[in-house]
């Protein structure tokens, strides 16, 4: 996508009342920002007028400023948009990225859990993330307090790759105490946000972020999560995406987890080794070249 198209897309997304899922569909169906915008209210006509409008100018300025800060925007029309995420219906039209993309993320695991983690939960998260990182599996998480932060830090300590999918604009840190960790992940791994830079955390942004995290990783493992937790929601979203969910055995104390454990595409696990083995099987069956046999 050219810088002009990027600016047009950004200006389009910033307009009031624009439904982002419709933008995604229009981009995919037409294959170009220009055609997509031309066919859609309220963007109609104005984005590509010969005289640039104020919002186009502003978009260009912002994209350049972000680029200087190491932030890039990729859209569903770009090759860099992650393949795993393309496969789910909740893919956002654009992602803002800081850090390096890596093809190994195609076989990665999202490690998620509650913000109000117990010491045992934090230990489990750290142990699992380290075990995956040591086996070369990128650890994806949401950079929230509690389980998420423990998973990221442990993956980094083990010398592994970690990716943070955050629920705010990429230039913000939430909670503030994870700002340094976010910087480190941007330097050594990748930070992803589906929200416009500057966006504050909202009630809806975290569930939306969970959907993207589920889509980015090949599978989700839930460490510790009560019924109302965002981590449980990610398990639900992952199953709706057709993705595999691993539940730590200790979750079976909860009714919701016992119910989920009965569902197809869910495995109860005790350790990183079991997640790794399950992931190898999932990677093999989701490979492009996989031969299909009945059973």
């Amino acid at each position, binding site marked *: 996508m050219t810088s002009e198209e990027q600016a047009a897309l950004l200006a389009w997304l910033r307009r009031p009342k624009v439904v982002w*899922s419709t933008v995604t569909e229009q981009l*995919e*169906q037409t*294959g170009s920002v220009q055609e997509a915008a031309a066919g859609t209210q309220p963007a109609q006509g104005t984005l590509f007028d010969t005289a640039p409008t104020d919002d186009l100018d502003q978009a260009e300025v912002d994209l350049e400023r972000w680029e200087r800060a190491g932030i890039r925007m990729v859209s*569903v*029309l770009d*090759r860099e*948009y992650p*393949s795993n995420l*393309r*496969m*789910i*219906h909740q893919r956002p039209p654009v992602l803002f990225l800081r850090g390096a993309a890596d093809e190994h993320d195609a076989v990665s695991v999202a490690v998620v859990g509650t913000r109000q983690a117990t010491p045992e939960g934090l230990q489990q998260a750290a142990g699992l993330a380290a075990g995956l990182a040591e086996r070369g599996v990128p650890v994806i998480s949401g950079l929230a307090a509690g389980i998420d932060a423990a998973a990221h830090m442990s993956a980094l300590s083990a010398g592994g790759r970690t990716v943070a999918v955050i629920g705010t604009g990429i230039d913000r840190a939430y909670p503030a105490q994870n700002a340094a960790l976010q910087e480190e992940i941007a330097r050594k791994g990748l930070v992803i946000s589906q929200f416009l830079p500057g966006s504050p955390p909202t009630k809806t942004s975290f569930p939306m972020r969970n959907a993207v995290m589920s889509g980015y990783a090949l599978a989700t493992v839930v460490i510790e999560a009560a019924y109302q937790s965002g981590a449980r929601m990610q398990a639900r979203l992952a*199953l*709706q*995406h*057709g*993705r*595999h969910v691993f539940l730590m055995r200790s979750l079976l104390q909860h009714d919701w987890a016992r119910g989920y454990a009965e*569902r*197809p*595409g869910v495995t109860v696990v005790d350790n990183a080794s079991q997640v790794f083995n399950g992931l190898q*099987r999932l990677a*093999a*069956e*989701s*490979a*492009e070249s*996989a*031969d*299909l*046999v*009945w*059973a």
Partner: protein
Amino acid sequence: MATVVDLSEPYRNHLIPVLPPGRGVCAVCWSAAHPDFRLCYKCNAARNDFRQGLADIVVPIALAVKREQLAHELWHYKYDVDPSVRTRLGNRLAAVLWRFLGQHEKHIADAIGVPEFEIVATVPGTREREGGHPLERIVGEIVGPTKDRYEPLLTLGQGGVPAHTLAHGRYRATRALRGDPAVLLVDDTWTSGGNAQSAALALRAAGAANVAVLVIGRHFDRAFRDCETYYQQAKSARFTWDSCCLELAARDDAS
């Protein structure tokens, strides 16, 4: 290596079955119909325009609800800009088709009183593409129960009939079908039925005695009239590979 069972099993988490025939359900395409009518608007119009030659039966595996996962997959396996996404989704949808046919093809044949389907065909795509339509790859090369019976029997007709229009001549058969065969006609999505029913007309014209249409997804727009009530009912009915809509319909008839 991937198994049909492993790849298709997780679909139970998000597939939504069509409702069994009855009030508010179209007796042809299984989608929402006005409660006072047996057929939905499109199927009724098709029946009025073409008394003969339409498919004997239409069987959807599940609802393809607009903006939900199955509808997403049914579009992206054909059109995603990333070829690996097209292939991976194609493999998964192949497993869905294989699983369904492995367990339920006999029920389709029974429902129209034929011992078996001698030929399997697909509805040609609406866009030209290099390397053929991905559904042809799925039905003709991957899916065990269909690949040996698959034949690329249909091509676009010469008449320039617009896509999705139900008409004679929209497709034509590449050869005459002798011996009154029963044809299983596979398509990915049924929206108005214009494509699949036009294909059925062409197969009949070529000599098919019976045509059964199997579609992976029955397109469904919740915002459309009569649809939300149907959607809520369908969603509360759990999808299972163990019974198909025809079995449920037969069960309802018996009770």
